[in-house]
């Protein structure tokens, strides 16, 4: 049985909840069971923010992430809160701006210039979630390029399609 428990954490406004919705959509395209939820409330409007999605071959009981298999942190605070005490097999992805202490020894660990890619290569900070989705799909192999493209297009505002597809591509390109 395959079950992925994915948590994306960062700052309100980075669109990470939409990011998890897109990943859930990709799961649906792959005929998986999905459960997506988020931390709601004032923290979703500027403070710390977290979105979660479970993608599984089997029906999902409990809908919240309990044993993450993938965590992404885009802010220092979210790194400190969510990237410790994880299972060995959990994959941790952080932005290159995160100050990771020398003694941090999580094995499956990757640092990528996600924020910089959105800001400089794509040219729009708001696309940081789509850059992330591109990178995550490349790392996890959730679905085909076509499916992830379709999932993105379902959840981005009209008129921003081209920009977001560029973000998706640039995100994927970060993962060598």
């Amino acid at each position, binding site marked *: 049985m395959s079950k992925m428990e994915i948590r994306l954490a960062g700052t309100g406004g980075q669109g990470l909840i939409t990011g998890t919705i897109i990943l859930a959509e990709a799961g649906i395209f792959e005929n998986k069971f*999905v459960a997506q939820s988020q931390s709601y409330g004032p923290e979703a409007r500027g403070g710390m923010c977290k979105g979660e999605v479970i993608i599984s071959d089997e029906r999902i*009981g409990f809908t*919240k992430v309990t044993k993450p298999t993938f965590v992404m942190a885009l802010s220092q605070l979210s790194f400190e809160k969510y990237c410790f005490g994880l299972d060995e097999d959990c994959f941790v992805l952080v932005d290159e701006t995160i100050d990771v202490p020398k003694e941090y020894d999580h094995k499956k660990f990757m640092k990528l210039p996600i924020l910089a890619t959105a800001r400089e290569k794509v040219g729009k900070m708001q696309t940081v979630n789509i850059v992330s989705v591109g990178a995550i799909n490349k790392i996890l192999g959730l679905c085909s390029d076509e499916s992830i493209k379709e999932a993105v297009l379902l959840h981005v505002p009209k008129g921003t399609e081209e920009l977001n597809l560029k973000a998706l591509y640039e995100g994927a390109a970060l993962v060598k």
Partner: protein
Amino acid sequence: MGKVKLMQGNEACVEGALYAGCRFYAGYPITPSTEIAEGCAVRMPQVGGHFIQMEDEIASCAAAIGASAAGVKSMTATSGPGFSLKQENLGYACLTEVPFVLVDVQRAGPSTGLPTSPSQGDVMQAKWGTHGDHPIIAIAPSTVEECFRLCVRAFNLSEKYRTPVIFLMDEIVGHLREGIEIPEDGELPIVNRAIPADPASAGHAYATKEGQTVPVMAPFGMGQRYNITGLIHADDGFPTNSTDIADSQVKRLIRKIDDNLDDILSWEEKDLDDADVCVVCFGGTARSVYSAVETLRNEGVKVGVFRPITVWPFPAEEMRRIAGKVKKIIVAEHNDGQMLLEVQRVTGLYDKIGFVGKVNGTVITPEEIVKAVKEG
């Protein structure tokens, strides 16, 4: 079966309502039910229906009842504080027998409480929140798919029995996104309230034939021209101080539900055949329970689930039957023990019933339920 779509519980509730034929929504913004209002604002005019954002919760409940009196299936949705405000006109709809669906996406209370946190603290309010003796049906969905399908059922029961139905959601299912299969048109039955063949000569609106408990009346505008009042009334819809009529009217309202339990009640039983322990749960909490049961079964613990889907009326007979078979019952709910009271009451058992509850706004985890079952 249609294609699987990713949908949020609150959105599925909107789509279920539309599928059921709901064409009027009145509401007031409140977390965590706001997506239902937002969804209806977009969708209602697309299907020729009407949406209105009222000045407050009281007014939105009133407007929904008004629309239904005029023959249009209607809905309003809210959460905790708004549910308190809607109680006034909920009672009005019970007594006047105007069908409508009242959605309560429960959040942590009391008062403004924790607006974005899950809770199931409105179980007893759903039953007893409006004053006076009255019937109520309350249905609690546990999945996004059920947010759709059971919303259709809520409308059907409301129309059939001419009574308000509370769709008792919670933040867990309301804000959850899952894949759901949208039923094709015609796949789920749709019930419309019975109306007289010739409204103009139909006579007393609230008259019921021998052996029947639900009156047959036409919506406003079809020529029956009757009176609706929140005062105790006779068959003709006019106020009366007759103690006999008061007695027979209130008792008929209650019998409307009590005499039709076979049709109204629904519940889920899971892994109970050989179970020593039964976990009783409803709504979003069931999701934690399913995971806990899976873990426990893998460890060889004989545990099963009883999930009332109609929280009100409570499936009392079924609860008693199960209680007679298992060694232990654990009630798990996001409150300080509300359904627990009902389980204790209907089974008459107290020592045999354990409880897992939470009032801190966090979800009950599968581990907490596993622990409770193991500790007995």
